[in-house]
Structures are given as C-alpha cells and as structure tokens.
C-alpha cells in the first residue's frame, strides 16, 4: 500500500465498517433480547392468567376465564398451547390443538415461571413458560359451602406459544438494520473518498509546481504560504535544497567560465606564435624558437589541467593516497628545481631551512603538488632580488611547514581569499599568467584531504603559507589539530 490515499481510504473505511458491524451486532442483540423478553412476558402473563382461572375437581378441572383478562390473552399473536399436570405426573387437561402430543413438563414458581425454548411436534419453534401453582377446588354446586382454598393440591401448567411471528419480526428488523448499515457504509465511503482527495490535493499542486522547475534554472521556489501546515516543512526543506543546488551550480558555472578564460589566453599565444611564424619563410633558428615558445605555453596549460584534474579528483573523493616515508627536506629541494631557473633570472634567494632528519609518512605525489605550487607562487610574487624560505618542525605528531616570501603587498582581508579558486591578487590580472588562481586552492584541498590545513598570513611585506598535517596518516583530524590552530612557529 504505497499510496497515501489508498492507505487513508482503507484505514478510514475499514475502521468505519468495523464500527458499523459492531454497532449493528449490538443493536441486533438488543432488538432480539427486547422482543424475546416481551414475548416471554406475555407468555408468563398468559400462564398466570390461566393458572388463576383454573379450578380442579377430582380428576376434572375447569378454567374459568374472567372477561377482564380475555383481551390480554387474545392480543397475543401466534398459536397458544397449554397442558396441565397433577403432581403425580398425569395429564389433567391439555389444549385441543395439541391433539395426541404432549408438551414437555417443567415448572417454575408462580412468581418466576420457568421459560425455555422448545420445538413443537409439527417442527415449529416455540417458547414455553412452566409453573407449578396451587389450585382452587371447584365447590360443589352449592354456593354456601366454602371451598377449602389453600389446600395442598398443586398443578403444573406449561403454556407454549409458537415463535414464527417473533422470528419473522426479528428477521425483518435484521434486514432493515443491514440495509441501513449498507447505506451508511456507502455514504461514508463516498464522503471519505471526497474528503481524502480534497485533503491530498495540495500534494498534487506541490508536485505540479515541482514539475515546472527546469534543471537549468533553479531560481524558482515552491510557495508554501497557502499549504496545509503538514506539508509546509517538506516544501521548506525542498526549497532549501533548491537553494543549495542553485548555489552549487552557480559555482560550477563560474568555475567553468573561469577555466575557459584561463585557457583562452594561452591558446591565443599558441595560435599567434604559429600564425606569425608561418606567415613568412624563416631560418631553422626562428622555427626552433617558435616551437620552444609553443612548448612553454603548452607546458603551462598542462600544469593548469593537471591542477584542475587533481582538484576534481579530490572533490569527487576519487583520490587515493599512497603513504610512504618522506624526507621533507629532500622533497622541498626536488620541488624547487622547477622554479630555480626563473628564480635565478629574477635574482631571488632560496633557503631550504627544513631540518635534515625531519620525515613523515605521507603521499609523495600530493606533497609534491603542494610544494611545487607554493614555490611557483612564491617565485611569481616575490619582489626582484627578494627572498623565499621554507621552515618546518614536528610537534605532537603534527608536521608544520611554512613557505614564506618577501615582497607581499596583500592586505589582510585579501589574504583570506588566496585559497579561492581562480582568485588573483590583482582583479584585473585574470588573463595574466596561468599558475595563480588554482595553485593555492589545490594546496588547501590536498591539505584537507590529508587531514591537515593550510593558512596564509601577510605581515610586514612577508607572505607566509603555513601547512599543518599529521606526520602519520589519519583519516580524521587528530585531537591536537583543532587546539593547535593558532600557529606556533617553529623555533
């Protein structure tokens, strides 16, 4: 039963039907009880009347019915039977309609005659009242002598009355009850269907609203002002989800646009270098120079694509780290090689102050990307003739590395943004060179994935990136990380 409507309908109609049946059974029992009681009451009345009217005389007896009581008896429907017995069990008299048959003999007191059902000789059902009563003796014809009333002579009387009429009454009432029940049931079911459909209509309306949301425009929200309060939380959560999705897609779109922009300038460089070179006959030296230029641009693009792919893999949790022991000083030296030439050209000094014996267990490739990006970034932004230095230490299982350079002109509020993707120190520099914008975002992303963090500061013209990550692999940040957030610099 996955449909809410079916469930409500079955629940409502089912319980309604059960109630109705129970109610019907009670009513039925009450009707039958009342009718039988009334029936029995008449039976007892008849019995008492007959008993009161009986006079015995030897083995003869006489029933003298006073006219006043006749209507009581005559009103009774159905055929009446009666039989009188002496105490010794001999039948004294019986009604003619019994013919050769006898009624069963049983008795109660005059005040409480015993009533029980029985089956008449002809197969009809009946109920009978039996009682034992003291009988008056019929006086001899003479008026003067007083009959010895209250003598010891008792008779037993059983009065039976067939229940055909009673049963047909009960049956009729039962049918009536059934018909009324069925009608109530039908009306109830129809009302339930209508009410449930009405109540669930807002759900359909919301569904229709949701159906109009296009995947390329998530700015729409479902109005919840007119909805029933049970649905409002659902719709609100949905709207919140839409909002989050909208933001995520917007980020994705701007990222795609940024990537397109970042790639356009180097492609323009390649097209232009090739176009100019091919526009005239050149010496082999010219061709070589042009090819060198194209290769340089292509390498920059490759580095940018690598960074993007690494970021995408880290974002989609595909990145699998391979942990191995790493001597930190060596990896910093290795990563510096790529930037050395440009640093020398710009007259920069580089100092690797990482202690020889400092090692950690980490992913070599990931750490290489981190240091290559940090050092390339430093070379790009250090002032001519400036200085770049790297320090590191290990405290309580946490490696702390600082990469610093002189010549920083970043304001404090700008420093917070250096880890944003495609952010540049100078907003108009977007087209300038390729490395900035992604490098630091990647550094922070890798540090997070390694269970560490990357922070940046700018103070007195020195730009400093601090990395803190566990020296042994962990998959959740160690307790110390949160507490030791404020940089305690290496001694």
């Amino acid at each position: 039963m996955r449909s809410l409507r079916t469930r409500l309908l079955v629940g409502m109609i089912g319980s309604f039907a059960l109630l109705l049946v129970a109610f019907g059974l009670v009513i039925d029992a009450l009707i039958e009880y009342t009718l039988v009681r009334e029936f029995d009451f008449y039976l007892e009345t008849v019995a008492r009347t007959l008993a009161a009217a009986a006079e015995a005389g030897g083995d003869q007896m006489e029933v003298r019915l006073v006219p006043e009581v006749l209507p009581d008896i005559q009103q009774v429907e159905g055929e009446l039977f009666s039989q009188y017995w002496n105490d010794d069990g001999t039948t004294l008299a019986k009604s003619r309609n019994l013919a050769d048959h006898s009624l069963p003999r049983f008795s109660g007191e005059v005040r409480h005659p015993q009533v029980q059902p029985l089956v008449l000789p002809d197969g009809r059902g009946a109920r009978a009242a039996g009682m034992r009563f003291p009988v008056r003796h019929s006086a001899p014809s003479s008026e003067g002598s007083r009959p010895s009333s209250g003598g010891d002579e008792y008779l037993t009387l059983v009065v039976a009355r067939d229940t055909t009429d009673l049963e047909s009454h009960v049956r009729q009432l039962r049918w009536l009850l059934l018909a009324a029940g069925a009608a109530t049931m039908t009306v109830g079911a129809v009302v339930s269907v209508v009410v449930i459909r009405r109540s669930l209509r807002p759900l359909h309306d919301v569904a229709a609203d949701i159906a109009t949301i296009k995947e390329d425009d998530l700015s729409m929200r479902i109005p919840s002002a007119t909805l029933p309060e049970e649905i409002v939380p659902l719709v609100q959560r949905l709207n919140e989800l839409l909002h989050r999705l909208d933001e995520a897609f917007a980020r994705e779109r701007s990222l795609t646009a940024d990537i397109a922009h970042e790639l356009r300038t180097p492609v323009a460089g390649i097209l232009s270098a090739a176009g100019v070179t091919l526009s005239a006959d050149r010496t082999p030296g010219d061709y070589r120079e042009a090819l060198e230029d194209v290769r340089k641009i292509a390498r920059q693009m490759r580095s940018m694509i690598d960074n993007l792919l690494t970021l995408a893999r880290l974002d989609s949790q595909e990145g699998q780290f391979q942990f191995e022991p790493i001597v930190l000083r060596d990896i910093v030296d290795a990563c510096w090689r790529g930037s050395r030439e440009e640093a020398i050209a710009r007259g920069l000094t580089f100092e690797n102050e990482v202690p020889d014996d400092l090692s950690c267990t980490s992913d070599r490739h990931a750490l290489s990307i981190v240091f290559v990006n940090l050092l390339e970034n430093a070379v790009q932004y250090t002032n001519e003739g400036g200085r770049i230095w790297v320090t590191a230490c290990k405290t309580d299982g946490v490696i702390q590395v600082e990469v610093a350079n002189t010549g920083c002109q970043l304001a404090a509020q700008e420093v917070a943004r250096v880890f944003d993707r495609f952010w540049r120190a100078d907003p108009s520099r977007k087209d300038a060179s390729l490395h900035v914008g992604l490098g630091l975002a990647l550094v922070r992303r890798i540090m997070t994935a390694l269970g560490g963090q990357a922070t940046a500061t700018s103070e007195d013209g020195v730009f400093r990136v601090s990395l803190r990550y566990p020296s042994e692999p962990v998959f959740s940040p160690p307790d110390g990380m949160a507490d030791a957030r404020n940089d305690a610099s290496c001694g």
Partner: protein
Amino acid sequence: MRLLLVEDYPPLQKSVVKGLREAGFAVDVMGDGKEALWYAESNQYDVIVLDLMLPGLDGLSILRRLRAGGRESHVLIITAKDAVADRVAGLNAGADDYLVKPFEFEELLARVQALVRRSYHRKNPIIEIGPLSIDTAAQRVVRADDEIRLTAREYALLEYLAVRAGEVVSRTDIWEHVYDFRSDATSNVVDVYIGHLRRKIDREGEPSLIEAVRGRGYILRKEPA
C-alpha cells in the same frame, strides 16, 4: 604606422609584436596598465591594441581616460571576455573594434590595418598615387606593372607618406610613426631612408615622386608636378 600593444601575457606579447613589426608597424609594447596609459597619452599612436585585464590598471579604464583626454587613436580590444555585455561595454567605452581571444594573428593584422585605413579616412586598401600602386594589405608596391621590392622600413615610410599624400610630412612625424626609427640613434635616419626609397621608386629622367620641402619635411605628390 605607430602602434601600441598592451598585453601582459608574455608569450602572446612576443609573437604579436614580432608579427606586427614584420608587417611594417612601429610597435611599442606594454604589459602594465599604468605604464600603458602613460605611453598612450604621451605619443600619437595610429592604433592601440588593448587587452582588458591588466595589472596596474584595467583596459577599460585606460580607454575611458584616453577618450576623456581627447585622444583619437583607434583602439582594438583583445580579450578573453566574450559575453555580449563585455563587447558592448568595450565598444561603449570608446573602442573601435573588439577581438576575442583566442584569435588568429592574420585576423588581428587585418583588423589593425582596417583601423589604420580609417585613421586616414580611406576605404580602399590600395593607394594609387601617380604611377605608384601601393597594396597596403599585401604590402606590395607596383610602378607601371613592375613590382618594387622594399624593405620593411622602406615600405613603412612609403605607406606613411602615401596615406598623407599631398601634404607636407615633417621629419618628426615620420620619426614618430614609422617602424622603430626611434630605436635608431642616428639623427638623419629619416633622410637616409628617404634616399633609399627614392632610389627604388623613382625612374631615371623623371622627376622624383618624393619632394623635399626646405625646413618643413617631405611631400609625396598626388599628381606629378
């Protein structure tokens, strides 16, 4: 023709400068926005090729300041921004043309040459002066069906005199507008090249096409005197 290229991505800068110089332009190059504005304000450029996102000062600000200062140089914007709104903003800031990166160098050159023609109120890329026919697009000079081979400097000098044909052009103007004469330290470099040019385009027994006007400069006559 004197041209200012403002572009801060070195590999692109390098090849574009090379191509434009080979096409006979006197090219100045700037990678920084503030320096570019200073250069543009203190020189008479025929065309300025302007990138938008620059360190120091962005391209649109440079353009607005130049126009506000009354500079009439033709400006071609080159940028990675390709949205219609960006193009409209660029043209509304006073640019004459807009080229989206990445572009083919040929197209950049053709657009720059078109802007040069506009600078001198011409539509036809071929200039006919007396017996001379100068195809400014192909950079070919023909005199009475004979092609005359000129060096880049000589061609640039002839083209500049040709676009201003009929008026006296001062040595300073020539020095300013023609292919990096400014890099040549010799004071009489203009006269030397006028001499080279005359030897190539003049015919024996006919009057020289280029006349010297004492104390004022040179003139290329529209019709032979």
